[in-house]
Each structure stands twice: as structure tokens, then as C-alpha cells.
């Protein structure tokens, strides 16, 4: 049975691919039914993934199919079915199924409906392939596939300049990370035993033992470099907030299931390698910490609901990296479990939050600025309740999903502070406290978003809003339709005829409800019961990781986490539930800080000036140099042209007999030369 299932693991990526193939081929006939093959494909893929959960084991692989064989370099198509993979697969396909169902309602009426679903299918195909593949090269292949799909989906409304720019940005930033990953693979290939880059070989003990310290550190660093781009860490996180330009289900997919988790997965997969490089681990933790803090600070002041969610994703990813970075010595196992558990729970509640935001946006006629609506809890009861559930989970409210996973990360950090090499412990202590602070901020901005949207006096967006007017003026000024907050696609996004302020149709609310239930209880089911830990234990190389003899629940850490969550939520309730003037006063008082947060610390502008400007300058200099080269090349090219025009053109007189005569003469002369001179 398990053999049978393992042999058929290829079905997981195959079903979504088949679905998108059907959509592409039959788009003309399917039109408004284009979601059916995709939803069916992803759902089938989920069923297979779920059954694969049963057969997971550290060394279960599907049979290898020969693919790339260049003497000495052998990359087969082979799938690995260990705990990590099956966990990711089940999570990805489950969340993706719900998102696809939601999208079938959300995207209804869009002219690119079939294209959208074809891309969704391709996206899920790439992600499942990435998770399944058993070697770095195949992973890299699907890694790029994920990148391409995200490019096409973020730029789905490509006629909108902002969407096109966001897609380009996402792609380019990801290329920077891919570069690091590629070099890591080259290094692995040259340094590993047998030049075999499959996980089973690379992460085996013999191989890790024979790698030099420089190789271990360098490869770990490069892998982490690759992960920073994909998983939106400082300094390459800038693409993720902009990716909001895509349709909301895409955002949900990217943030929850498919794209950003790829980097975390890569690092988790390579944990046996990473735990041998303490410096890189510390770097991972610090970068994660920085990311979490930075994005949480930005999220505090954003007025765009989806943008708040985006920065919260960045922040939560930072948490995951903190967890991954905490795996020193004996904490390794605990740390990676914690990070992956957070990834797991985060998928549910973040998908939920994004879909709920989408639902709000859908109901508000594509307006997403929180200043333009409020008090929606009576109008959108289901959205309200589900958003609340997701918010609680994100804030880490006790007993919700986020609580358990965040708690484990904090626990891992705390242990890391004790277990780290002498001199490094301080870092982890700092990281720990910043994490607690970030948790508090998380709870606060989650509460802020929630209360601003659903509480307070009921208000629906109208064209007379000062913000709306400002936008309109902006548009006139700039002479373009590019606006930060205009997420919808005005022409035919299918919300015409839909009255503003109504609850979304059931096809959109049912996925929300399912996800809400998951967000509330999934942590309770998998966390304290040890189910998750037990399953993840079946991963390649994890049994050799250091682990603590006994770690029960640490009440102090739990208390800290709960306290942070409850304090944050309480503070936001005070500030925003009934529209107190305190936040405005605070913003006035701390104006520079507020502005910095509001403008995202001007990171984008700095990048624009520093990186893009430098590159352009370099290009200018090169262009001058190029002109010289061009002149030489053209001069050389002109010479034969001139010679031919003057000397050889008369021979091209178009008379076939002339050509034949020349041929005859040529043959005769050649023969004579052969006869007399050779």
C-alpha cells in the first residue's frame, strides 16, 4: 500500500497541471466554468497528499526517472515523501483548494477568468513539485516555476501599470535570491560526495562530515540568501507588499501557502546542514528578528487593510526565521519544529485573513482603505466573525492556532539563549525580547485593523471621502490611473451590479468559515498533542538533530506570549473600538517616528536611489563604451558591403545561364588546376 502510494506521488503535481492544461486547451468552451478543472484538480491533489501523510517516512522516495544525465552529473526526477514534504503538501493543497473555491466567486466576471485559473493550477503544480522534489536541482527548477507563476499572477491585470511594475519588482527581487541559490547548488555539486545533489546524499552524515567548515558556512549562507528573497526577509522583502497588486486570492495564495513558504521550506529542509554553521544560524535569527520588528512597525500605521496583512506576513515570516535560527546544539529539533509549526498554522489564519479582506473589498466595491469604511460588523456578519477568528489566531490569543506556534518559537529562542556557544547567547536573549515585543505589536495592529474595519460607526465608502478626493486629485496631477489603493480592475472586474455593503455570496463565505474553524483549533489539535512533532520527526536527517531530553510546557514563556497578545488586543480595543483620540495625539507627539512608519521607512525610495540609480549610471557608462565598439563593428561590417556592392554586384545579373556558365568555368579551372599543378 505504502509502496503504491509512494509510486503515485507524481499525481500530486499532476492533477493541478492537468487542470490548467484542460483550462488552457478548452478555455473557449469553459469560459465561466474554468474554475471547475482547477478546483477539482487541486482537491484531488489534496486527497492524494492527505493519503501520503500516512506513508511518510524519512527515506520514502518514489522511483527515479532519468532526466538530466551529463557525465558525472545525474539529476533524476524523483520525489521524497518524508514528514516535512507531506506536511507541506497537505497544507498547501488544502489551503489552495479553499482559495480556489473562494476565487471562483471572487473573480466571477473577469475577462481573464480562464487565464487566472490556469495560472493558479500552474502555481500549485510548481509549489507541490518544489516540495516533493528530492534534489536541489529539481527544487530549483520548481522554485523558478513558482517565481514565474507569481510574476504572472501578480501582474494579472497587466494593463494596470502599478500591477505590471509590482510583478516586475517581484520577479527581479526574486532573481537576486535565485542567484544565491544557484551558486549554492554549484557549490554543493562540487563539494558533495559523488557530485550528487540529491537530499539523501547531501544531508547524509558522511557528506556533512566531509564538508569543510568554509563550505558549510558558505553554502548555508547562500541558501539563506536564496530564502530571503523568496520568503521576503530583510533586505529583499520589498516585493511582497507590492504584490498586493494581484487579485486578492493570489495574495492569499502567495502569503499563505505557495510562494513565501518556499524559502522557509528550503531552510528547514537544509537544517542538518545549517545547524553546523552557528554564525549563519545567528544571522538567520537576527535577520528574522529585524524583519519581524521592521514590518510590524510599518504595519502599525498602514491604512490599507491588505497592506497591513502583507506586512504582518513579513513579520510572521520573520518569526519563522527566528525559529529556524534558534536551532543551536540541542535546541535544533525543537527550533525547526517550532518554525514549521508556525508556518503550518500561519497558512490557515493568513489565508483566512486575506480572504476575509478580499471579502471586505468585494463588499466595499474594491475600496480597501480602512479610513473609508467602518462598523461593518452588522452588514458583513460572516466576514466579521471569520476575520475575528483569524485575527485572534494571528495575535496569538491563548488557545488559538497562532498562540501555540508562537509559543514554541519563543520557547526555542529561550532555550537557544541558554544553549548557544559562549558569547552568542546574548544575541538570542535580545532576539527573544524583541520577539515578545513584536508579538505585542502584532496583536496591536491586528486589533487595529479589525476594530477600524468592523467597529465604530457604520460608514460605507463614498466618492466624497477626503481620501477618495485626494486620490482623484492625485490622478489628475500625475495624469495616470496609477493609484496605490486601487486594487480592483475597474473594467469588468465583475463587481458592477453588486451593491456596495452586502455580504459576499456563499461560495466565498464557506471557505472562510472552514478556514476560521481551522484557525481556531488546528493549533490545539496538532500542537499540545504532539501530533505535529511526531509527524515531522519522520523527516530526512532530523533524527540526528540535537534534541532536549525533556521539555514540558514552559509556563513562563506561555504567560509572556499570552500577555503580549492580550495587552496588544486590549490596547487596540481602547484606541480604536470607540474611536478614541489617543492615536492621533500619539502620532502628533511622535511625528517623525509615525512618518517613518507610515512611509515604510522610505526603504523603497532608498533602494530606488541607491541600487537602481547606481545600476542605471553603470548602464550609461557602458552605453558610451558601447558606442565606440559599435562604431568599430559597423565599420568592419560596412567594408565587405561596400566591396560587394562595387565588385561583386555586377555578377548578380539574374541570368541563370550566366550563373551556369560561371559554374562550368569554375569546374573546368578546378580540374585543370588539379591536373597540372597538383
Amino acid at each position: 500500500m505504502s509502496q503504491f502510494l509512494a509510486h503515485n506521488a507524481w499525481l500530486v503535481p499532476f492533477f493541478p497541471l492537468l487542470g490548467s492544461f484542460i483550462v488552457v486547451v478548452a478555455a473557449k468552451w469553459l469560459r465561466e466554468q474554468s474554475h471547475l478543472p482547477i478546483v477539482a484538480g487541486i482537491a484531488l491533489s489534496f486527497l492524494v497528499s492527505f493519503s501520503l501523510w500516512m506513508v511518510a517516512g524519512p527515506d520514502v522516495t518514489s522511483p527515479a526517472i532519468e532526466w538530466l544525465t551529463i557525465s558525472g552529473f545525474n539529476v533524476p526526477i524523483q520525489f521524497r515523501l518524508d514528514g516535512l514534504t507531506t506536511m507541506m503538501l497537505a497544507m498547501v493543497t488544502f489551503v489552495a483548494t479553499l482559495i480556489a473555491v473562494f476565487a471562483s466567486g471572487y473573480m466571477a466576471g473577469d475577462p481573464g477568468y480562464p487565464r487566472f485559473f490556469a495560472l493558479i493550477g500552474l502555481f500549485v503544480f510548481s509549489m507541490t513539485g518544489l516540495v516533493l522534489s528530492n534534489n536541489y536541482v529539481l527544487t530549483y527548477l520548481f522554485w523558478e516555476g513558482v517565481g514565474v507563476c507569481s510574476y504572472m499572477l501578480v501582474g494579472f491585470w497587466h494593463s494596470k501599470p502599478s500591477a505590471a511594475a509590482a510583478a516586475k519588482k517581484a520577479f527581479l527581487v526574486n532573481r537576486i535570491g535565485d542567484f544565491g541559490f544557484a551558486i549554492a547548488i554549484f557549490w554543493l555539486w562540487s563539494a558533495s560526495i559523488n557530485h550528487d545533489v540529491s537530499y539523501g546524499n547531501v544531508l547524509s552524515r558522511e557528506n556533512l562530515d566531509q564538508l569543510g567548515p568554509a563550505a558549510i558556512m558558505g553554502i548555508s549562507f547562500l541558501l539563506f540568501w536564496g530564502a530571503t528573497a523568496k520568503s521576503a526577509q530583510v533586505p529583499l522583502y520589498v516585493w511582497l507588499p507590492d504584490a498586493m497588486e494581484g487579485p486578492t486570492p493570489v495574495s492569499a495564495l502567495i502569503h499563505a501557502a505557495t510562494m513565501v513558504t518556499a524559502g522557509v521550506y528550503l531552510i528547514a529542509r537544509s537544517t542538518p546542514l545549517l545547524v553546523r554553521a552557528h554564525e549563519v544560524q545567528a544571522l538567520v535569527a537576527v535577520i528574522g528578528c529585524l524583519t519581524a520588528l521592521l514590518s510590524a512597525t510599518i504595519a502599525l500605521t498602514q491604512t490599507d487593510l491588505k497592506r497591513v496583512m502583507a506586512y504582518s506576513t513579513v513579520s510572521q515570516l520573520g518569526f519563522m526565521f527566528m525559529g529556524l535560527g534558534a536551532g543551536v546544539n540541542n535546541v535544533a529539533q525543537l527550533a525547526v519544529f517550532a518554525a514549521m509549526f508556525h508556518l503550518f498554522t500561519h497558512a490557515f489564519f493568513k489565508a483566512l485573513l486575506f480572504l476575509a479582506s478580499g471579502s471586505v473589498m468585494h463588499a466595499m466595491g474594491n475600496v480597501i482603505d480602512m479610513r473609508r469604511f467602518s462598523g461593518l460588523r452588522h452588514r458583513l456578519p460572516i466576514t466579521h466573525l471569520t476575520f475575528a477568528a483569524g485575527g485572534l489566531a494571528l495575535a496569538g490569543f491563548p488557545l488559538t492556532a497562532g498562540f501555540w506556534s508562537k509559543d514554541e518559537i519563543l520557547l526555542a529562542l529561550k532555550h537557544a539563549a541558554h544553549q548557544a556557544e559562549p558569547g552568542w547567547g546574548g544575541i538570542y536573549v535580545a532576539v527573544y525580547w524583541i520577539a515578545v515585543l513584536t508579538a505585542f505589536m502584532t496583536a496591536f495592529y491586528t486589533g487595529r485593523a479589525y476594530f477600524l474595519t468592523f467597529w465604530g460607526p457604520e460608514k460605507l465608502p463614498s466618492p466624497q471621502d477626503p481620501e477618495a478626493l485626494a486620490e482623484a486629485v492625485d490622478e489628475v496631477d500625475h495624469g495616470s490611473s496609477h493609484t496605490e489603493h486601487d486594487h480592483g480592475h475597474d473594467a469588468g472586474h465583475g463587481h458592477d451590479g453588486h451593491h456596495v455593503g452586502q455580504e459576499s455570496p456563499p461560495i466565498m463565505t464557506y471557505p472562510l468559515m472552514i478556514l476560521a474553524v481551522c484557525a481556531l483549533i488546528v493549533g490545539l489539535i496538532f500542537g499540545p498533542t504532539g501530533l505535529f512533532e511526531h509527524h515531522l520527526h519522520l523527516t530526512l536527517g532530523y533524527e540526528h538533530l540535537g534534541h532536549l531530553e525533556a521539555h514540558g510546557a514552559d509556563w513562563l514563556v506561555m504567560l509572556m506570549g499570552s500577555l503580549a497578545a492580550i495587552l496588544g488586543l486590549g490596547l487596540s480595543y481602547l484606541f480604536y473600538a470607540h474611536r478614541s483620540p489617543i492615536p492621533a495625539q500619539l502620532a502628533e507627539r511622535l511625528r517623525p517616528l509615525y512618518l517613518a512608519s507610515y512611509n515604510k521607512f522610505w526603504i523603497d525610495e532608498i533602494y530606488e536611489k541607491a541600487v537602481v540609480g547606481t545600476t542605471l549610471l553603470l548602464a550609461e557608462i557602458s552605453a558610451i563604451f558601447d558606442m565606440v565598439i559599435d562604431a568599430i563593428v559597423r565599420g568592419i561590417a560596412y567594408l565587405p558591403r561596400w566591396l560587394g556592392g562595387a565588385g561583386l554586384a555586377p555578377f548578380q545579373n539574374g541570368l541563370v545561364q550566366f550563373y551556369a556558365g560561371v559554374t562550368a568555368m569554375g569546374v573546368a579551372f578546378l580540374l585543370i588546376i588539379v591536373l597540372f599543378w597538383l
Partner: protein
Amino acid sequence: MLEKRDLILAIAVIVLGATGTYLMLPHRHGSAKPRRVHLIGAVLAGLALLLFATFWRAPASAISSLFFYAFSLAAVAGGLLTITSRNPIHSALWFASVVLSTSGLFLLAGAQFLAAGTVIVYAGAIIVTFLFVIMLAQMEGRAPYDRAARAPGRATFSCFLLFWALFYALLIVRVAPHPKGVAIDTDNERLVRSGEIASSYGLKADHPARLISELARRDTLRMDDISKRPKPHVAGLGEALYTEHLISVELAGTLLFVALIGALAIATPKLPIRPGDPRPQPLTKL
């Protein structure tokens, strides 16, 4: 290398032939050449042909040599007249004589099937050409382009230069007398190789597969079998065609088929465009 007598003779052939042919070819501007010039040209060319014939060695038997000389002279003379006739119909007829003589030479070289095949194919082809000439050209009488040649001097020079090169090359060839008349043994290796295949299977002598493999390693390309007796002509040729050259046969068939379709596609009469019909757009903007 070459005997002086032969060299002089060869040069005489070339010079006389070139002069004669040039005189017989139409004038460059189509001006009429007097009958006398034609006559001189014909005499010179005929002289060259006779001198050329001295380079031929008569075959052993009298009848063969009679036929050989007749056919060869007819072929070359026919070729000369084909290209010098003002009237394309005469050209076609002279070419028919060339084809018939060539078939006769094929027959003398033991290529009976080819001789008959050439006659069948070319008889049809020439008749069709004939019809074309009659339909297209003869309606207006002798066209200016039939009366005038394009650069006859230069063409004669280059072609006779080519002929001289070929002629000289053939004259200086000296081969060692052939011991058996044929070159064998180069493909013994192949026989051994296929024999190995047969024996490696360890088949019994009367096993059908063994028989087939033995059949396969017969040398199909030789005109005589292992006991040096000539194979039956058509059977031998067919065997060689359908074993060694099967791909060539298939390719030739494909080629014929494609040419058939191509000729039909090219020559199918297009409907004339009447005034008022939408004009077809020219395909210039490619």
C-alpha cells in the same frame, strides 16, 4: 604521361570541335549565317568527331564494335545537332536520337533493363516536350530567341575548356591491368561480420532464421554470384535495388510523388480575374 601524337590529336579535336560548334550555333544577334558557314562548321565538327572516334578502342567482337561506333557517333552527333538546331522541334528529335543511342550503349554495357527504361521514360518525356514546343512556340513561327544565341563564343569557350579538362584527365589515366576485371575482397569483412552474427546465435543449419541471415549476407551488389556466373539481369538488379538501396527506392518514389503534386499545383490553370472581381492582395509586405 601522354604520347605526343595523342596530345596533338586531342588538341585538334578540341579546336576543331569548338570552331565547328561555334559556327553552327545561332548568331549572337540572330543574323542569319550563310549556308556556307553552316556547312563549314558541320565539316569541322564532323572532322573533330572522327578524330575523337580515334580515341575509342573497338570492342572485341566485330558486331559489338560496329554497334558501339554507330551508337557513339550517333550520340555525339545528335547532341551537337540538338544544341545547334534553330527549330526546337528538331532539337527534340535530335535529342531523341541521343537517347536512343545512349540506350544502345547501355545495352552494350549489359544494362538491358536500363536501356528499355530510358527509352520508355524519355520517349514519353520528349513527346510531351514536343507537344509543348508545338503548342507554345511554333504558333508564331521561329521566334527571335530561337534564332539568337546567348554569348555563343564565351559559352563555347568555357564548355570546350571543361571538355578539354575532362578529356585530358581521362587520357592521362593509366591503370594497372585488372587481374580479374573487378575489385573484390573489400567487402569480405562484411561477410565475416554477418556470418558471426549468424553463428553467434548458434542456430542449426536448417533453421529458418539461419537461412534468412545467410540470404542477407549474400553480396547483392555484385553482378556475378559466388561461383562467378552472371546473375539474371532483372532479378539481380531488383535484388540490389531492394536490399542495398531500399532507402533510395523509397526516396525516389517520394520524390516522384512530390514532383507529381508540385507539377499539378504549378500548372493548374488559375481562374482569370474579371473586372469587378476583388483583386487578390499582392504578398509584397512579407
